């Protein structure tokens, strides 16, 4: 792996994060170290076909029967911004035409 090619902003974007200038250098260095650490797994010889991977999880599904759930008021209680007492409120998701142009 060519360490020089790590694109910190692209990884941050994939992660739903942004990187500010104060942390950029140290975060870049930390990421290089972590990737370099993880890289050593590629040197091991593993004689297993991907189809042989089992899971440790039981995944025993429950019967799909509708049950009473939490009410709307309870769920909205923890939101920072609520609209009309009924909805989660968020900033604009679609920029208007003027802003786009």
């Amino acid at each position, binding site marked *: 792996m060519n360490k020089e090619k*790590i694109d910190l902003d692209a*990884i*941050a974007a*994939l*992660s*739903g*994060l*942004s*990187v*500010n200038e104060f*942390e950029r250098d140290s*975060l870049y260095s*930390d*990421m290089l*170290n*972590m*990737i370099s*650490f*993880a890289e*050593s*797994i*590629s040197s*091991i010889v*593993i*004689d*297993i076909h*991907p189809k*042989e*991977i*089992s*899971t*440790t*999880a*039981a*995944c*025993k*599904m*429950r019967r799909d029967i509708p049950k009473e759930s*939490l009410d709307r008021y*309870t*769920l909205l*209680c*923890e*939101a*920072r*911004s609520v609209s009309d007492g009924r909805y*989660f409120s*968020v*900033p*604009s*998701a679609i*920029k208007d035409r003027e802003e786009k142009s």
Partner: protein
Amino acid sequence: MSDLTSMSVRALSKMLESKEISSEELTISYLERIASLDRDLSAYITVTADPALCAAKESDKRRKRSESLGVLDGIPFSVKDNFCTKGIKTTAGSRMLENYIPPYTATAIRRLTDKGCVLLGKTNMDEFGMGSLCMNSYFGPSKNPADKKRATGGSSGGSASSVAASMAAFSIASDTGGSIRLPAALCGVVGFKPAYGAVSRYGLTAFSPSLDTVGVISRDVSDCDAVYSVICGRDEKDATSIDVKRNKKSADRLAVGIISELIDRPLDSTVRSAIQKKISNILLLGADSPTVSIPLIERAAECYYIISSCEASSTLSRFDGVRYGYRADDVSDIDELYRSTRSSGFGREVKKRIMLGSFALSSGYYDRYYRRALLYREALCREFDRAFEKFDLLVAPVYGSTAPLLSDPPSAEKLYQEDIFTTPASLAGLPSISIPCQAKSELPIGIQILCKKGDEDILFSFSKTLLAEEGVLYE
């Protein structure tokens, strides 16, 4: 009555049963101890004094009516702050959930309160369980009761500290790659990570769902067994939970293997000497104890960091500032809301791991890292299966040194490498316990014992004998 707080659950239960003490008196003793010690130790993030006293009084009323709910009725305990508790703040050690109050309670905690246990409060932890020293908490580090200048180990540092300092009779915590066993070892208490799925994860704030387990930190092995027996078992709310059938097998003349790849690693001289002494005791107990080689263990920590970070990048995507938790101000659109909330709500270690996970799952790198790590995990499980064909139990150190100084912690890379001791059992989904192997007057050191799923009784029985061999730590 301060002596009460350092007694085992069994001893306290007998005293409650005989009405020598009341749960209210016991709870007050613990709350007084928390009030006097926790300012220095920072084991608790939230103390629930009033609800605890109410629960204790209810327990006393039940006992008066001879309607006790069992051995744990009226016993006060603490809970790591990543378990949802209805009406009680649940932070996961993060700014992101600083003021979050869940509308439901985790199954493991509910099973205990249904048996009359008294919740004293929620304990400090590395943010979302990511850390080995409990120094990544938004609320500051927890401190080791054996030496306040030292770290507790993590991520369940507050839970281990609360038990070691007699600020709770036992604690419920989570273990993803060693988060119960490591702090238990560094604080001098018992820490048990059950088999994957043995205890429901419902209500546990997810970090890495294929590795997360719910376990117990206690003063001795019998207490651990008693608590585990209550919280284990299938839960419809967690599809990965199972009823573990506990094998009935004689614990006489066990075959005990010492994992050579772990015992041969660089260890501090005090750790090596304590572990060697314990191994000598194992031989004296009559157990066979040759070494066993599990070669793939050499890369367990790397595999753990790939899988857990990949899963964390997915599980932590739910924190977006919309439905609950922290939300950044002054944002112009939804994309900025997500980015800004997550960038200022998560701490540095969490952001690093989310980014490593996103990178390892991205196009061009998935096969190289994530898929390879899954293959490695499968191969490691098979190596463990082969080892357990010859051995009943496997033994290893928990950590290479005693608790590090808070003022001089090891580098992040060194901490990741040290996780080699605890991550193998996590990757293979095996039950594993850490028990103290050092005199109380010295800095605590732990020894780790692993068994195969279903052999928990043998694990507990052997661990009890090994502890009792030098006298039970607390009685």
